[in-house]
């Protein structure tokens, strides 16, 4: 490992002159993540063509001594978690991608066992859209995989170099779904779906690489005791991966299942369509590009923060996408300049929500009237009227509550948050608890109709999720 005084021994980047206390600032930020698990998961940035310094890859010459069975041709990519070489296997006369893991992985005594186990699972995966693992093992303390060599590019490069048209993106998604479904059927979760790991060969076929590598290289498994020095987390590089991780995966990687991949797929899907990441309060894809608005539902449902609200199978995503495409014979884009044929859930909820606000205002005003009146009569007359006063007060309280609930529900609808409250408030709107009910009844029904559509539910699910900025 190269450690000149001006580079960070940790990540290999140049230390800036203003590094706080002489410690590498990027590494310091990375330490801030709550669990090392999350940070490790963020990192698994080696893909065929990942970028980033940190792990200094041996030259092909250095390597050829260790791998007599291969002719190492060239280094094709390296990242914090390994390096990939193009090599030829003369005995079979085929070109392979040789991926070597950083030597540090060997320092963990439990790694060998884990590697063996995972490698066996990966070798079982056989699917046209999954990069095939031919061989794996350890030589001289260096762990490696020999894999199918994909001559082409990756999705990241494609996105960077001018992006994809929606039809191109829509042709890629079902292939990713196929690959994921095949792996999930074998019990393998990718854990690191991102554009760098989606390779595209020269014929446009999709090949997913690095299945399970995140788990293998992460410290998330039970094999690593807490408090032990972290061998791998410290090689972490590619923080950007975090954007593709499901919320539950960021929290803790134990107990993460295949639905985490579906979330990541949703992020990739969104990025392919819009060129942006779905961070913060993001807009549905159809408001950015001309696509069938029903695709919004597919993307948003994949991105639901609760795994239960996502698609439960990758194949379901594929089915939905294909149904929408088939329904729409030429994938016909909407008329130019009218990007949205159907208004978004937020827009459709706006009118009923405004109605509820008006009804709420009527309730509040009426309550004030009733209370004033009640005060006056109780001032004028005395005990004979107590019962009447009580009734007035009860009506006043009911009316005020009605009004407050309506206002709260409307607020939730505007913000697409707290779905149960929005639905509850709509139900209350229908009940005759206050003078405002005359107005709120129709709007409550209207709101319920909109709220109960799948699209709106998905919008709420996404809205209550990663809404941060």
């Amino acid at each position, binding site marked *: 490992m190269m450690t000149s005084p001006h580079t960070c021994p*940790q990540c290999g980047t140049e230390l800036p002159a203003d590094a706080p206390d002489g410690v590498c600032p990027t590494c310091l930020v990375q330490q801030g993540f709550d669990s090392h698990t999350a940070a490790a998961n963020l990192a698994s940035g080696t893909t065929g063509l990942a970028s980033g310094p940190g792990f200094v890859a041996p030259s092909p010459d250095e390597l050829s001594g260790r791998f007599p069975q291969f002719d190492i041709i060239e280094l094709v990519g390296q990242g914090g978690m390994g390096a990939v070489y193009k090599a030829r296997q003369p005995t079979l006369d085929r070109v392979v991608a040789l991926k070597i893991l950083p030597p540090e992985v060997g320092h963990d005594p439990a790694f060998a066992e884990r590697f063996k186990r995972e490698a066996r699972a990966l070798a079982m995966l056989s699917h046209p859209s999954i990069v095939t693992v031919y061989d794996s093992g350890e030589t001289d303390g260096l762990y490696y995989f020999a894999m199918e060599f994909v001559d082409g590019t990756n999705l990241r490069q494609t996105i960077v170099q001018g992006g994809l048209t929606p039809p191109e993106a829509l042709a890629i998604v079902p292939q990713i779904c196929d690959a994921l479904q095949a792996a999930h059927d074998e019990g393998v979760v990718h854990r690191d779906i991102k554009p760098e790991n989606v390779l595209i060969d020269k014929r446009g076929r999709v090949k997913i690489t690095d299945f399970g590598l995140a788990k293998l290289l992460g410290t998330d498994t039970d094999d690593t005791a807490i408090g032990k020095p972290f061998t791998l987390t410290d090689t972490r590089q590619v923080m950007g991966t975090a954007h593709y991780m499901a919320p539950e995966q960021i929290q803790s990687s134990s107990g993460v299942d295949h639905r985490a991949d579906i979330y990541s797929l949703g992020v990739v899907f969104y990025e392919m369509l819009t060129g942006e990441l779905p961070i913060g309060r993001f807009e549905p894809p159809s408001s950015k590009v001309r696509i069938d608005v029903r695709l919004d539902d597919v993307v948003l449902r994949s991105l639901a923060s609760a795994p239960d609200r996502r698609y439960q199978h990758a194949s379901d995503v594929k089915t939905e996408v294909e149904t929408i495409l088939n329904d729409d014979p030429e994938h016909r884009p909407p008329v130019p300049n009218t990007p949205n044929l159907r208004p978004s859930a937020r827009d459709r909820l706006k009118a009923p929500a405004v109605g509820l606000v008006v009804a709420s205002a009527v309730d509040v005003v009426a309550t004030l009237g009733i209370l004033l009146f009640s005060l006056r009569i109780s001032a004028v007359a005395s005990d004979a009227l107590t019962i009447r006063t009580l009734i007035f007060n009860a009506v006043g309280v009911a009316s005020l509550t009605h009004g407050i609930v309506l206002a709260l529900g409307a607020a939730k609808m505007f913000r697409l948050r707290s779905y149960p409250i929005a639905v509850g408030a709509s139900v209350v709107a229908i009940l005759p608890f206050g003078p405002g009910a005359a107005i709120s009844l129709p709007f409550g029904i209207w709101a319920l109709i909109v709220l109960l559509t799948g699209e709106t539910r998905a919008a709420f699910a996404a809205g209550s999720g990663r809404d941060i900025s």
Partner: protein
Amino acid sequence: MVVEAGRRSSPQSADALATLCEIYWFPLYAYVRRQGQSTDDAQDLTQAFFAHLLDKQTLRVADRERGHFRSFLLTSLKHFLAKQWRRDAAQKRGGGRAPIALDFDDGETRYRIAPSHESTPEKLFERQWALTLLARALATLHREFEASGKAARFVSLKMYLGGEKSRVPYRELAGQLDTSEGAVKVAIHRMRRRYRAILRDEIRHTVDAAEDVDDELRRLFDALTP
């Protein structure tokens, strides 16, 4: 603290705001400098901006939705500069009495040290913000070590804060500190854990909700990556 700073002019809110400004003034100053202002003008403008902020209780109108104090400050500064507050205006509002103590000499040195390759003032601002935050977290940690009489230990161990690898192997370090390798590892682990808590706490002051801390960390990371 952001939440506190946003409350209607209570004494705490003014204090909270002043505290935040004292912490994060340098990124703003660097931004103004990168906008092409001279040292003097940048100092006046920064000071005047804070005076404006504290006077007007602008924080009150901070859009709670946005959550991030960092973006709020930058946006406010941009608005402020757009109004073209000239130097005399700055004198009038802020020059007379300095609302908070800012060490501009130090600031100018730091500004000159900062790499000049960052293309935009915004990027510079964000990077400086991240560095300020980190430096503050480190300083707090340092103080804690000092308070427990372990200042020297902090100096030896801090290079491991960023991660495992370092130019000095554990064994050598253990020799220097006259302790065992295992003890060094434990000490480093504890120090990192404490540092993480401090850093997250520091960030927590600048965002609305605890859930936003990870997101802000990611943004800081992006800001530091060229």
